[in-house]
């Protein structure tokens, strides 16, 4: 077993870290205040290779794998988690296209996404409940040569920053009655609804997409008619959960650094508080959680790169890491005492950001539903 990252992966980490520290850090305050994604960073991120990291080179991408992507998202998340949040969903749109798109669809839609000319989004969730995917109510009906889509999608990442959307809607009954569509922002009847005001991941845009007799050309169906559940599940489970996990991993790394710095600098009773056993135990716990999460995240991405089935592992990485980030952020805030809840200190943002990762990309409970099934599978009688 080899736990060592390659020289390539170390360079990806270093370059992303330098970029994030120098280009993203100065933008955090504005993101926190306005809740807007800094769209002008899209081009520099494209130049580095972040937007197109998993897109194949023939469609203008870098063609790297999921482990590389996880490291890059982690490094962005270490500085500001709103960025990898937005980017990982952008990657989900690319993955959906690459996995299910026709050659024409890939040629048309992947290059502008890889080049950062626009962002992408994937719209599954509806007000009727995100966990109950089959309960969705949006419909698509083929009329003449067009699909007419009606419905409302909520909590959609990049809703207001994307020029085109992957939308799941009902074309029939039951699990085989969902289909995926490529909807351009300017399509007749396509509207951006409300923008959400979140308490965390402020710089990542989340909002509503409204499809009001929205017309899309017949050829804009993504994958087979009736294959929408597959598109949603594969995309959410593979790029969505690993991306969400990597975002939370970046938060956790930052928690560790902030807590360690503060504990070593804050002096009480004539010594840094790190010398107090209680505080060093907190640090030990954060340190261990960080390592557990990193191993879970890297393994899940590695399995994707090896073409192994990894839905349980990605759910494990996602639900464990997001929860651990929130748990550890609470500890880091406690280490900071009253300073921890002051806006000048980063840890309070880390807790808010970590909390938001928990329900996004499938809630912790849904993660456990997947894992419970995997855990019990060997004991099920045929």
């Amino acid at each position: 077993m080899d736990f060592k990252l390659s020289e390539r992966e170390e360079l990806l980490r270093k370059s992303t870290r330098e970029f994030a520290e120098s280009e993203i850090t100065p933008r955090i305050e504005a993101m926190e205040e306005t809740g807007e994604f800094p769209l002008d960073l899209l081009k520099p991120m494209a130049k580095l290779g972040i937007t197109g990291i998993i897109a194949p080179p023939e469609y203008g991408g870098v063609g790297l794998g999921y482990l590389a992507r996880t490291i890059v998202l982690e490094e962005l998340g270490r500085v500001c988690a709103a960025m990898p949040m937005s980017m990982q969903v952008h990657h989900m749109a690319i993955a959906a296209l690459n996995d299910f798109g026709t050659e024409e669809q890939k040629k048309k839609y992947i290059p502008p996404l890889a080049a950062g000319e626009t962002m992408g989004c994937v719209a599954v969730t509806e007000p009727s409940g995100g966990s109950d995917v089959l309960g969705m109510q949006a419909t698509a009906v083929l009329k003449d040569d067009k699909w007419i889509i009606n419905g409302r999608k909520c909590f959609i990442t990049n809703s207001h920053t994307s020029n085109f959307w992957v939308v799941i809607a009902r074309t029939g009954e039951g699990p085989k009655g969902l289909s995926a569509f490529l909807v351009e922002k300017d399509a007749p009847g396509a509207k951006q609804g409300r923008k959400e005001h979140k308490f965390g991941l402020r710089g990542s845009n989340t909002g509503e997409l409204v499809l009001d007799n929205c017309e899309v050309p017949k050829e804009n169906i993504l994958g087979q008619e009736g294959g929408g559940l597959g598109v949603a599940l594969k995309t959410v489970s593979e790029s969505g959960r690993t991306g969400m996990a990597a975002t939370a991993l970046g938060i956790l790394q930052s928690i560790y650094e902030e807590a360690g710095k503060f504990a070593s600098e804050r002096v009480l009773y004539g010594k840094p508080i790190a010398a107090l056993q209680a505080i060093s135990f907190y640090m030990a716990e954060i340190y261990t959680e960080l390592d557990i999460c990193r191993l879970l995240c890297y393994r899940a991405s590695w399995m994707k790169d090896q073409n192994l089935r990894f839905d349980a592992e990605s759910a494990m990485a996602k639900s464990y890491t997001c929860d651990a980030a929130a748990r550890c952020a609470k500890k880091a805030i406690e280490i900071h005492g009253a300073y921890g809840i002051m806006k000048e200190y980063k840890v309070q943002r880390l807790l808010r950001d970590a909390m938001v990762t928990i329900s996004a990309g499938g809630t912790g409970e849904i993660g456990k539903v997947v894992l419970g099934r995997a855990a019990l599978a060997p004991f099920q009688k045929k």
Partner: protein
Amino acid sequence: MDRVIVCVKPVPDPKDWDRLRLDPVTKTLVREGIGSVINPLDKHALEAALEIKDAQGAEVVILSMAPPAAQPVLREALALGADRAVLLSDPAFAGSDTLATSRILAAAIRRLGPFDLICCGNYTLDGSTAQVPSQLAELLRIPNIMHVSKMELKEEKELIVTQKIEQGYMRLEAEPPLLLSFTKEANKPRFSSFLEILAAEKRELAIWTNGDLNLKESLIGLTGSPTQMADLLVRQKGRQGLRLEGDPEEIARLLVDKIHQMGLI
């Protein structure tokens, strides 16, 4: 221009500086657990070279004298866009001062063949002597402009170089062959794009020993270095207390004497 050589030195990562220690016995830096990075000003030198590459397609060659452990740092320079790298590594080079280092670099540059430009950082973070660029230019018998704060390409083989001088700036027209050493105002170094990181894996990173350069042992390493370090001290910071007693006049006199004694005025 056809070829631009960039001299690069790996230095201890400034982020780890508060963990750097001096071994009290050997008087060397204890570098265990301390990361290495490209000397920050060398990144500006490399950026200048890459701008020439972008504009004119020049080949950019990285040259570094360092232990074999410096290879990742050179790979990083390749991932920024350089075409190939030569690492000069030999136990015989160890202990070289700035002059011996310049001799080694000069010999390697002669071996590389024709070049248009040599780009250096103005000084290194660890040594901070700023001597290598001028010594190197002298040994190669080419002009040298230090403190470059801006470089503009005019023609295929003509540069306008802004040099920072004490009272302001001087704009100079210059033609290759030439050595420039850069300050941090000169440009904003790029980040390694992921595509360049992938491309760098196929770029050549050669290691040359003294077997390749054939320099006399008396010119290199510790024996070839006229600078001998007598001692190395860690700066002690702290406050000294002194209590003067007596009547105000007496105290004032003692204070003046003390100030004279300490050579402060």
